């Protein structure tokens, strides 16, 4: 019998919206919300619409149509958001007897730039060509008559800018469209068969880069050598994206009064329609063969992400044992495969190689593909017991084994220096890939004691071991000791504090080709103190306060160089006060900071008999902060009028403080530590909404949305399509580069909306 249940007549509990609350709307019942909006963007619309589209004109924001019978054995629920836009989402849930299913189609844009200036055209997928006149013009600007790349020619920068300014503005974006579905069938009581499928297509272009190496020594060789200069090191391109990722899976689960088990198989395939990127070098129309310089290329080649796939089989289960004991586990086996055909070493025929060896012919590769294989085994077991009310004990074991079984290949050499020369070794080591494996084993014990009904005290120990091959540290052991307490006074107050001490040891360090005193932070010995606290307090039913803070201090005591220490702080406060069903206010504040201290030493290239002079040492302190806060208020004026105001601000900044601890280097000018400008990014958002309930079903409203984003980042602000610069630090070092100018910038946006919602 079909249900004709009346909609609830009682109001839903008051939900105080937070200032940062996601401003998407979902109908609790059948309905439609749409309207018209006017959008004014001043500045970089690419950042504003990074993951969304906000066009002027008519829109349908939300749509829902659903129905069900009395016991839910027949139901459907169709929903849509952002209908007809490139950031739309559509879902359909349905159930018919023992079969339930869901289907979805989701569109997510990723907009990188609306003002990129590519010099390239793309006559075929994966092929980027620069018109010959442009290449010729840029090449002509490369005046090497005095060995300094035209540094003394005042015409070169303006000419370069002029050429670059003729490239048309282009949008760089990748659209991710995913469709899929899942179904579950109750084939027998307590037996369920499930399956899912999804197909994600990503299409568009994003920014990639490539070096076009060109380097000369300054001052000659030996002790006269004081540095190098580079002429054309950088090149940006629009990389084609044409990816397809498909996921398939089947599962079967069986449960009883005290257990549940599940077996599943998952398959994931990734296909890239464009295996290689072949591109013209804007700075060269011909390959340049030279003994004095690197052999610069006119046409480069760079492989794009290779096709690959994984299969995974998982068996999981949990069983309830006597004495309120639970045993759960999960075991999985997966295989990864990748066997994309290799590209040739290079297309640069000017590279000097042994006679008769054609580096541009892929037939001269030792093998045609990697035959890449990885097998992963994962085992996880947890035993948790609460034999008496005041004690819980938990034991955990976990092992994750990543085994790379890919083929090891010895290459006779490679096109080094961004396809500018042939190199047969790297610092004496052969050109051979070395598949790397690692195994991580973790076990731990935890006890929770409840001496009082309102108090929990917990203590735990965990052991973490890494066993790797071909890393600078192959074995790590880590001990983690944690103590904590939780206080809970009914539902009005909850507070939690904890402290963890972590000590990680490292086996013998083998830096390989790196400086012997350098330690990689992810494998180096470290000591870590972690403090956590959290509380929620509701002194009144209408008032809730919440907050948490986490502070982590990490030191790397065995690292003479590299990352020395970092301090991480993350905290937040949230207050909501809703004294009436028709009125509420709220506020929040949150902050994250990461301070990192590192040491390095500028390499002196064996000048004077040593590479590593204390006078060339430098340190860096980076302070990185994100600070966010906001307030909101909502309520009713009465007579059907409702208002909702939200303001939030997010302010980020990064400060860099580099210094020479042993004084200003006098011999190696590249060792001088200079201050870097601060990076700042601030986002201010104001949303005001006023609505009027014309009838119980019909609501009309207006909305104003203001957003201001301010970005100052020296890493991107200095970039223009054609860059030609004498670097003050070097005086003789002259560089030029070609960029897409596809960086994000500041913007101010005003959006006015008139909308109507109708519940049917």
């Amino acid at each position, binding site marked *: 019998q079909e249900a004709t249940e009346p909609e609830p007549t009682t109001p839903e509990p008051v939900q105080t919206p937070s200032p940062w609350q996601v401003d998407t709307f979902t109908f609790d019942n059948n309905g439609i919300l749409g309207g018209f909006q006017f959008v004014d963007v001043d500045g970089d619309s690419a950042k504003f619409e990074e993951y969304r589209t906000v066009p002027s004109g008519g829109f349908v924001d939300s749509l829902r149509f659903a129905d069900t019978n009395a016991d839910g054995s027949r139901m459907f629920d169709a929903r849509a958001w952002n209908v007809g836009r490139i950031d739309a989402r559509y879902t359909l849930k349905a159930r018919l007897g023992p079969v339930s299913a869901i289907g979805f189609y989701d569109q997510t844009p990723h907009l990188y730039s609306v003002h990129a200036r590519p010099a390239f055209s793309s006559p075929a997928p994966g092929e980027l060509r620069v018109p010959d006149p442009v290449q010729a013009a840029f090449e002509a600007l490369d005046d090497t008559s005095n060995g300094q790349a035209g540094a003394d020619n005042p015409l070169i920068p303006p000419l370069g800018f002029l050429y670059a300014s003729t490239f048309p503005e282009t949008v760089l974006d990748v659209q991710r469209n995913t469709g899929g579905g899942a179904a579950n069938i109750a084939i027998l009581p307590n037996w369920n068969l499930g399956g899912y499928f999804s197909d994600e297509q990503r299409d568009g272009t994003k920014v990639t880069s*490539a070096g076009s190496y060109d380097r000369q020594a300054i001052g000659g060789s030996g002790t006269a050598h004081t540095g190098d200069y580079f002429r054309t090191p950088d090149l940006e391109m629009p990389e084609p994206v044409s990816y397809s990722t498909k996921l398939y899976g089947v599962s079967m689960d069986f449960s009883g009064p005290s257990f549940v088990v599940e077996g599943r198989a998952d398959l994931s395939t990734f296909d890239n329609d464009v295996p290689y990127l072949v591109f013209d070098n804007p700075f060269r129309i011909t390959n340049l063969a030279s003994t004095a310089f690197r052999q610069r290329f006119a046409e480069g080649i760079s492989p794009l992400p290779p096709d690959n796939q994984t299969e995974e089989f998982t068996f999981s289960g949990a069983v309830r044992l006597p004495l309120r004991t639970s045993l759960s586990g*999960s075991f999985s086996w*997966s295989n990864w495969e990748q066997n994309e055909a290799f590209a040739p070493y290079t297309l640069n025929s000017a590279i000097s190689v042994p006679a008769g060896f054609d580096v541009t012919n892929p037939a001269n590769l030792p093998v045609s593909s990697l035959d890449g294989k990885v097998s992963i085994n994962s085992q996880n077991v947890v035993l948790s017991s609460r034999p008496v009310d005041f004690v819980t004990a938990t034991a955990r074991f976990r092992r994750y084994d990543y085994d790379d079984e890919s083929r090891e290949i010895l290459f006779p050499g490679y096109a080094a220096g961004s396809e500018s020369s042939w190199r047969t070794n790297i610092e004496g080591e052969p050109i051979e890939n070395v598949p790397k494996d690692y195994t991580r084993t973790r076990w731990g014990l935890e006890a929770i004691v409840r001496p009082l009904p309102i108090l929990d005290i917990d203590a735990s120990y965990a052991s973490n071991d890494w066993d790797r091959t071909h890393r600078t540290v192959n074995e790590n052991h880590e001990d983690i000791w944690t103590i904590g307490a*939780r206080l809970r006074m009914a539902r009005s107050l909850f507070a939690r504090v904890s402290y963890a001490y972590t000590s990680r040891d490292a086996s013998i360090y083998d830096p390989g080709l790196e400086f012997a005193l*350098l330690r990689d932070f*992810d494998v180096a010995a470290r000591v870590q103190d972690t403090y956590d606290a959290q509380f929620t307090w509701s002194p009144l039913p209408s008032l809730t306060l919440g907050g948490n803070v986490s502070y982590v201090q990490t030191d790397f005591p065995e690292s003479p160089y590299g990352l020395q220490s970092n301090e991480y702080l993350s905290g937040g406060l949230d207050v909501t006060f809703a004294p009436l069903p028709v009125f509420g206010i709220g506020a929040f504040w*949150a902050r994250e900071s990461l301070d*990192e201290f590192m040491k390095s030493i500028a390499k002196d290239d064996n000048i004077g008999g040593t590479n590593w002079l204390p006078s060339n040492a430098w340190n860096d302190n980076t302070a990185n902060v994100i600070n966010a806060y906001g307030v909101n208020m909502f309520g009713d004026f009465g007579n059907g009028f409702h208002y909702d105001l939200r303001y939030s601000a997010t302010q980020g900044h990064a400060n860099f403080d580099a210094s020479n601890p042993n004084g200003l280097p006098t011999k190696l000018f590249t060792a001088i530590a200079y201050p*870097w400008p601060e990076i700042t990014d601030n986002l201010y958002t104001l949303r005001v909404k006023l609505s009027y309930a014309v009838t119980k079903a019909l609501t009309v409203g207006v909305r104003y949305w203001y957003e201001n984003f301010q970005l100052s980042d020296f890493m991107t602000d200095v970039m223009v399509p054609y860059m030609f610069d004498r670097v003050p630090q070097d005086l003789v070092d002259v560089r030029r580069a070609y960029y897409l100018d596809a960086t994000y910038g500041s913007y101010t946006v005003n959006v006015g909306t008139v909308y109507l919602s109708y519940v049917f």
Partner: protein
Amino acid sequence: QGQEKAGDTVGNETCITCHEDVGKRFAKNPHVLTGGKKPYKQNSAECESCHGPGAQHAENPTKENIVSFKSLKPLEASEKCLSCHRQDKTQIHWAGSAHAEGRAGCTSCHSMHGAAPSSKALLARPKATELCLTCHTNLARALNARSRHPLLEGKMDCASCHNPHGSVTESLVRRNSVNELCYTCHAEKRGPHLWEHSPVKENCLNCHNPHSSNFESLLVAQTSRLCQQCHMQGRHQTIPSKANEPWVFSRACMNCHPKIHGSNSPSGPIFQR
């Protein structure tokens, strides 16, 4: 209080006599719309399935005479829910997990009566991200950061990456490892590649902060400083540099080493191609 009271059951009709609002809302509750399943002792969802026999409460309607979830501690409330949901495969890894054992409880996140009908899984807040941030308030900074995932747009939520009911991995990550999770959406970085960058292959979080960053691509630090923390082999890797140098601005080290996630080029041993 919190313990089931001995005595007779009275049936829904009696409860609704006083709790009319709750009764009406409950008609569309998933506990009622079970699709024909009969997981309850009484064959249908009765108030007393969760609140225990109500005869004493009907006679003397105090909180002490009924199982009131508002009065239960999370551990006790969760036990009530798990008496049925323990058989659910989504709860396989609940025991011993980060939210279990009273750290949080089912009713900390799910509202049996108060959830909006449209909310997924009877969440106490309309959206999962909002709910998580009620305790993890520090993460509110992430939603509007310069570099972030598309949570504000509703394309992801916290549960896209974390399973609040427990997982086999730290931080309740949904997959067997952080990298396997990231590859779900970023399969192009999965490989295996001919030339692998070890820290990348072992843990994406060595370089990326998935929640928020002041730097592009969710990097934990400025690109060249991040690379310099582990690289001192060549001269150019070791210079502190001025801000206007090509190994500092734009993509910094990746201006020339763009294949930092792994290269499949025979000429890519140092990730230039």
